[in-house]
């Protein structure tokens, strides 16, 4: 029916280890960023939290998007549980990315908030998925809720790249980290930092998969509990 308890335990342990390695990589392995002002060198390390959070959130919304499509095709409740779990995690990682971005922005750009394309896009994404949960919350009948949410999930996800493009064309000051290989942007990462960067990204993906598996398992538990309540006329 759902993921086995054993598998969850293994994943939970793997995520713990991966996150410990990530902390080591971000704080010890990674050298100071010599190309930024010394006063913001410690703050620069937030990148090892900020970017993996952002990537994980996009991965989460992508999983939710695929699950929404699969729900409409199969009408199997599994995909509704997946879509909901992934969207919730997407919101959590988005909040993490926005807050860490703000904390970096203060020392680097001397403001907590800029109307920078990625930051603004992320805020819109947050609103999109809050709307997704408002839609879910406003429909009582589970089949209809799953269907409407799946349709909205598809529309919402497709709008993200368009929003990003339009805000980027509007204006930009965000450092472009992963771009063309010949990129010599002063915010670009040196090879030693790249290792730490990749390690933290992989660790966050493991963390995301673990949280997703736990949330899906919880979703199944809720489903079973509701079925039991129904049987007991609770």
């Amino acid at each position, binding site marked *: 029916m759902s993921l086995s308890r054993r598998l969850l335990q293994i994943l939970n342990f793997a995520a713990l280890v991966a996150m410990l390695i990530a902390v080591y990589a971000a704080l010890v392995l990674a050298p100071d960023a010599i190309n930024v002002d010394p006063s913001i060198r410690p703050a620069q390390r937030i990148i090892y939290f900020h970017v993996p959070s952002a990537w994980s959130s996009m991965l989460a919304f992508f999983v939710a998007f695929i699950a929404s499509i699969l729900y409409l095709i199969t009408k199997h409740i599994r995909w509704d549980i997946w879509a909901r779990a992934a969207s919730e995690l997407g919101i959590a990682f988005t909040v993490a990315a926005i807050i860490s971005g703000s904390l970096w922005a203060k020392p680097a750009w001397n403001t907590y908030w800029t109307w920078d394309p990625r930051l603004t896009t992320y805020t819109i994404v947050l609103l999109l998925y809050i709307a997704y949960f408002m839609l879910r919350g406003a429909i009582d009948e*589970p*089949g*209809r809720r799953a269907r409407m949410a799946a349709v909205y999930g598809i529309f919402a996800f497709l709008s993200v790249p368009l929003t990003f493009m339009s805000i980027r064309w509007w204006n930009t000051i965000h450092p472009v980290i992963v771009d063309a290989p010949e990129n010599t942007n002063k915010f670009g990462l040196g090879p030693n930092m790249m290792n730490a960067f990749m390690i933290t990204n992989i660790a966050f993906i493991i963390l995301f998969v673990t949280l997703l598996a736990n949330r899906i398992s919880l979703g199944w538990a809720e489903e079973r509990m*509701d*079925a039991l309540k*129904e049987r007991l006329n609770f």
Partner: protein
Amino acid sequence: MAGPLIEVVGLRKAFGRHRVLKGVDLAIDAGESVVLFGPNGAGKTTFLRILATLSKPTSGTVRVAGVDIKNNPEGIRQYLGLVTHAPLLYTDLSAEENLAFYARLYGIDAPARRIDELLERVGLLHRRHDLVRTFSRGMVQRMAIARALLHNPPILLLDEPDTGLDPQAAEMMTDFLREIGGSERTVLMTTHHLERGLELADRVLILQGGRIVFDELADALSYEQLRPTYDEYVGAGVMVA
């Protein structure tokens, strides 16, 4: 045609965990007039809406003329006329405009003649240019039947067509339904009015708790015989209409 016109096998419908239909099996032959009784919440409306392709079954199959409605809902809709609690009419359009709209939806050839013919039959030809909002409940219900018959469907589904009508209007409705039911048309109707239902039907069904619990030919039943059974399954409390 060899098999039954409408064939329902193991039909189940749940809204979330609320199971409305718990396995309905039924076969209706072409030309039959079937009346479906049942207490409120027994799933009568849901059953009719599934037959009308408005609602999708959770499991089980419905075949109309041998074709699974899942495979060709658009095709099946051409063969169905539906009258529901709501008249499915636009109160800001005239009688004629309403029918003209539905004639377009069904792709009817020479709609003007067909519309005149139907308005004549339901006795509303003289009100053809009046907005439906000015009609009485009885007139609206006759319009609703005209609307359902517009594309001359071989199957007519009626969900409590007599509800909310005064006795006189209900009587007119009964006469009218007898007239259209007497033809080749297959009619499946729900009602809370035992006597009226029995009068119109060749066959009586009772749906209770999501299952068909009673299925008899109407010829073999008198009102007095059916009454106790009806009260047992449906409950006397509903018999006020």
